[in-house]
């Protein structure tokens, strides 16, 4: 009785594109701030992966769960994160959601369904599954939880255990694998030996979907289908998308290990540029539209950056230095 999946409309496409654009402009800004030495810690960007990421975040609903990973700036914005909070986190503003305690890609607001990843890859898979289990136990249905990871992340025990457990309980979990051919410098050939990561789906008894990660329309369609199937009771969905990251692992990395032939292949295409061509080809937008959208994005990003730079930084004296929420459980020996 699965309801049919609504097709991706022009306005869906444009909406998604515009989030990708903001994400790209924001990440370019982060890279520039990094080069200027203004970022606290590292910068890890998702350039080239926006089409896939936005397709996840934008098609989840309020009340769904989302645990984005490293390369999900676009998906984060689509799911409700803001340019402002992104900049606050990277620039170390005291007003950021992590209050300086954690940074960059580790931000989130778990109570809003926007989980804050820990660095240990794979760890968010069971966490989202658990969130979904709790919702089910509470009698809720029709919600979906999604998390993303890379080709490298599929090698972790956490991915395996989490996806398997979710499958046993037929939880509405979406695991989106961005196969960008490298885990840091490690090529697929040293990461796995299966012909295709999608071959893993059958081993978990979950539905597999493939997306062309450079093609926004395909990503939107594929994710829409997968999310729909999860929502309708189809159990976990494994989406594998093919693409490249068009930046280094972090901004400290020049990614010189990426093979030239790969860069030149279809995978090396920039999903944002392809989307722009598509918009123009289809006459869904004019060159003027694109320019003005970009200007708008730049204004927003620059304004936020300017604002954040004037914000206070965390004050150690105001910290209560406790990791526990219960006041009576606190202690701090050895810190006179």
């Amino acid at each position, binding site marked *: 009785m699965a309801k049919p999946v609504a097709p991706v409309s022009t306005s869906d496409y444009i909406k998604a594109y515009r989030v990708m654009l903001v994400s790209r402009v924001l990440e370019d800004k982060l890279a520039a701030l990094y080069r200027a030495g203004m970022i606290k810690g590292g910068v890890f960007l998702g350039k080239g992966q926006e089409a896939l990421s936005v397709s996840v975040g934008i098609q989840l609903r309020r009340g769904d769960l989302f645990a984005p990973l490293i390369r999900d700036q676009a998906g984060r914005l689509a799911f409700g994160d803001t340019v402002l909070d992104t900049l606050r986190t990277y620039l170390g503003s005291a007003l950021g959601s992590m209050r300086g305690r954690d940074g960059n890609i580790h931000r989130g607001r778990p109570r809003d369904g926007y989980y804050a990843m820990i660095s240990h890859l794979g760890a968010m898979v069971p966490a989202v599954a658990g969130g979904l289990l709790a919702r089910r136990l509470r009698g809720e249905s029709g919600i979906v939880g999604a998390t993303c990871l890379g080709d490298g992340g599929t090698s972790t025990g956490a991915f395996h255990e989490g996806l398997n457990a979710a499958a046993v309980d037929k939880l509405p979990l979406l695991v989106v694998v961005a196969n960008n051919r490298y885990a840091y410098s490690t090529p697929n050939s040293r990461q796995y030996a299966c012909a295709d990561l999608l071959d893993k789906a059958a081993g978990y008894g979950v539905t597999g979907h493939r997306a062309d990660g450079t093609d926004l329309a395909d990503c939107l369609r594929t994710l829409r289908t997968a999310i729909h199937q999860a929502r309708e009771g189809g159990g976990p969905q494994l989406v594998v998308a093919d693409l490249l990251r068009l930046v280094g692992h972090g901004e400290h990395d020049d990614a010189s290990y990426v093979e030239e032939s790969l860069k030149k292949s279809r995978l090396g295409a920039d999903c944002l540029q392809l989307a722009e061509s598509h918009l123009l080809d289809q006459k869904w937008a004019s060159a003027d539209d694109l320019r003005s959208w970009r200007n708008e994005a730049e204004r927003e990003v620059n304004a936020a950056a300017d604002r954040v730079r004037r914000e206070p930084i965390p004050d150690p004296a105001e910290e209560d230095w406790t990791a526990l929420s219960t006041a009576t459980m606190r*202690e701090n020996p050895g810190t006179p």
Partner: protein
Amino acid sequence: MITYLEAIRLAQQKALATDPRVFLYGQDIGTFGGAFKATKNLSTEFPGRVLDSPLSEDAIVGIAIGAAIEGARPIVEMQFADFSTCGLNQIVNHAATLFYRTGTPCPIVVRLPSGGTSGGGPFHSQSLEAVYSHWPGLVVLTPATVEDAYSMLLESVALDDPVVFCEHKFLYYHLKAERLPDEALPIGKARIARPGRDASVVTHGAMLHESLAAAELLAQDGFELEVVDLRSVKPLDTDTVLASVARTGRLLCVSEEWPWGGVAAEVIARVSTEGFGLLDAAPVRINAKDTPVPYHPELWAVHRPTASTIAAAARQLLHI
């Protein structure tokens, strides 16, 4: 008579009955009732709320964390404390950091059937309370009595923070109580299990009973050991320990876990730094030996502290 194990079962039953947010997840805990039967009949009494998990400790804890974020109160069982090393990453890096990082509490309870039993061997005997106490962000409990097993587990479920609940397998069957308590000392408070004037024995878990037996032995010689049951090793009730040492002037720490950085080391560090002037003599610690827990009962009996080795240490401390 209610056993320590039954108290744990009853606490989970009460938690399930009184708090709709509570559910149980772990290996073989459903129809089978758990490897130790700590969840016996609960899956029938609370259908759909006592779930068998796959053989996946990392996922078990990870799932509990996600559930807690969504407002549930999961109690998860590790089949043995020793296997929690496979779920340790989620415990120490995810559950324990969540509140600090995001302000979202993570109210999970991870039950660890802990400690040595005869014939248990290297992988079914470990006492990991010191390991979990080292990382910030966890409450680590070591109930030593039937009453505490019950009340502290209930309090754990009510707590907004992640709890590592180190229940001791050696106490499961033979430790018994007439009835369960209505009121209890809160988590975080130690208890004077036996008052005495000559030396303070600070201990927890199954070692409480060896220490009490040692106190009996010394009483026959006319010496009175004060036995302090820590109950909770993190937070650790330094005040009660210091007050005891203030009375006795002597400190003997007894712990079943390994020595390096164990509970005994931490207690001695606290008393030495915060109550140096109270000590009339060098503090002493007794731990298990620094090897894996041996399988053979004859070796095991020597590997862990016992009433007689504790008594011997106490005699040395008292220069008897």
